[in-house]
């Protein structure tokens, strides 16, 4: 049985991983309170699962996986089958101060269905390949590709061709 970390060791781990996990959580959820809840949950589950984690060095990657899996289980709470928002056009999306004619990417993400948002964040922010995104979300690579394709099409509508060129398709392996 691996020795669990001391409170001081675990505190250091939380401090070190917190900003990065928080940013991913915020991009996934689009809400500060929910992001904080999620980013507390991930290291807490990591602590509770220490026999699987085994070493302090392995803990950051484990916590990130737990964070994504936990977010995925929250998405599952409302079901994914028809994850297609009924609205076609964004309304009330706050324009970015630096680019007044388009919303921020974060605001545009909020217009996506949860799993579409997740694939965009994991592929284009965390830079994970399709296979790892599929593993994190528990779906097929085909689904990741189709969700990416749908998400990029919608982001293109929201953000314009300059940000999401039409040729980008679903390739980002």
């Amino acid at each position, binding site marked *: 049985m691996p020795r669990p970390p001391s*409170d001081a060791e*675990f*505190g250091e781990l*939380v*401090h070190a991983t*917190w900003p990065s996990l*928080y*940013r991913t959580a915020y991009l996934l*959820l689009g*809400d*500060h309170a*929910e992001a904080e809840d999620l980013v*507390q949950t991930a*290291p*807490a*589950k990591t*602590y*509770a699962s220490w026999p699987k984690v085994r070493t302090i060095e392995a803990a950051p990657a484990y916590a990130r996986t737990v964070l994504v899996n936990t977010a995925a*289980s*929250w*998405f*599952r*709470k*409302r*079901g994914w*089958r*028809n*994850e*297609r*928002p*009924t*609205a*076609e056009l964004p309304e009330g999306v706050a324009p970015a101060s630096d680019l007044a004619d388009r919303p921020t*990417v*974060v605001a545009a993400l909020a*217009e996506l269905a949860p*799993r579409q948002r997740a694939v*965009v*964040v994991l592929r*284009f*922010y965390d*830079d994970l390949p399709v296979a790892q995104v*599929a593993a994190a979300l*528990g*779906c*097929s690579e*085909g*689904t990741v*590709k*189709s*969700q990416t*394709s*749908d998400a990029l*099409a919608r*982001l293109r509508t929201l953000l314009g061709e300059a940000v*999401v060129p039409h040729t*980008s*398709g*679903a390739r*980002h392996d």
Partner: protein
Amino acid sequence: MTERLSALLHAEADVVDVPPPSTAAVLRRGRAARRRRRTTGAVAGLVVVGALAGAGVALAPAGDDEVRSVDPATSPGDTGATFTIGTTLWYDDASRRAVIDDKAVKSIYSTSAGVLVRHGENNWSDGGGPQRFSLVTPDGEVRRLGLVTEEVAHTTDPGQPYVAWGDPRDGSLVVVVHDVAADREVARVPVPEADGAYFATLELVGDTAYVRALSEDGGERHFALDWRTGEVTPRDLEVTDVGGGRGVAGPSIVELDSGAEVWSSAQRNAYLDLSPDGRHVLVQGGGWQNPTFTVVAVDGGSEPMPLDPPASRYSWTAGSELMSVTADAVTTCDPASGACEELPVDLGVTEEELLETLRPIGAVFES
């Protein structure tokens, strides 16, 4: 390419206000979770705890060896509230259960021959290695099928004994139909119009499969395929969910045959879940963590009916009742009257474990 999108995401994430971490809170939660894991254990025995609320109907003890005749008055394939927790299938309003011999359940489907369980090495929906199948028949038999697939999305029609899927191997889409009662393939239909597709989702309605074919260039094509004759009819309309001769098309419910709109949502960013009989639609709005739920009669005649948020989620049973599950109760609601019945059960899991592992009937975590 996506470099610009990626750069903007990083730039905007860098300026997100990050609150300071609360190490003490994390440790508290971690210790509490570890205590729960020690005390919960893995036993999932059922304890009978009551009767159907309001109806006074006694709940018989569930068991793998219990046999109950099928009620002919119910809809084809209707097993009431039906779901899996781990590898245990709970069906017939959670009064019966069956254990699937595999590592994890991926999803479950209604068929006229019984409940079809898709399972494998993990609970990933359409991915994660081999997809194996077991049929739980109305008499309680768990029949392992010879069918094994991989990386495809399946569909059933509750009124038929078939499971169907689109196999895009080598860039040529083939729709396959398998009889789960006889455990044999009954159709393998090429769809040359969908050449180049890398993934396909289907909705099976009688002899017709509504096909959504996805291409690597981001394009989609939609077809209606008569899987008995092989006739392919291109369609402009994408249908993502079907029931009662109708389907969900974006913000609308349409007639499958004509494409005529019969109902449309005025709510922004809502998600539509059509009942199997096509008479009601569950409209999910609000934020995803605090969603709102309203049942609407597609043909009108009654006011939209708000529902309390479920602990897990709402799903339609094959008989077009709404179902939700918690660790200690299964609730079914009549969408016409709004009357709900809560059936106490002990599923042997915590609420958190329930959310991780619950697979309700009719819910496929794909789109």
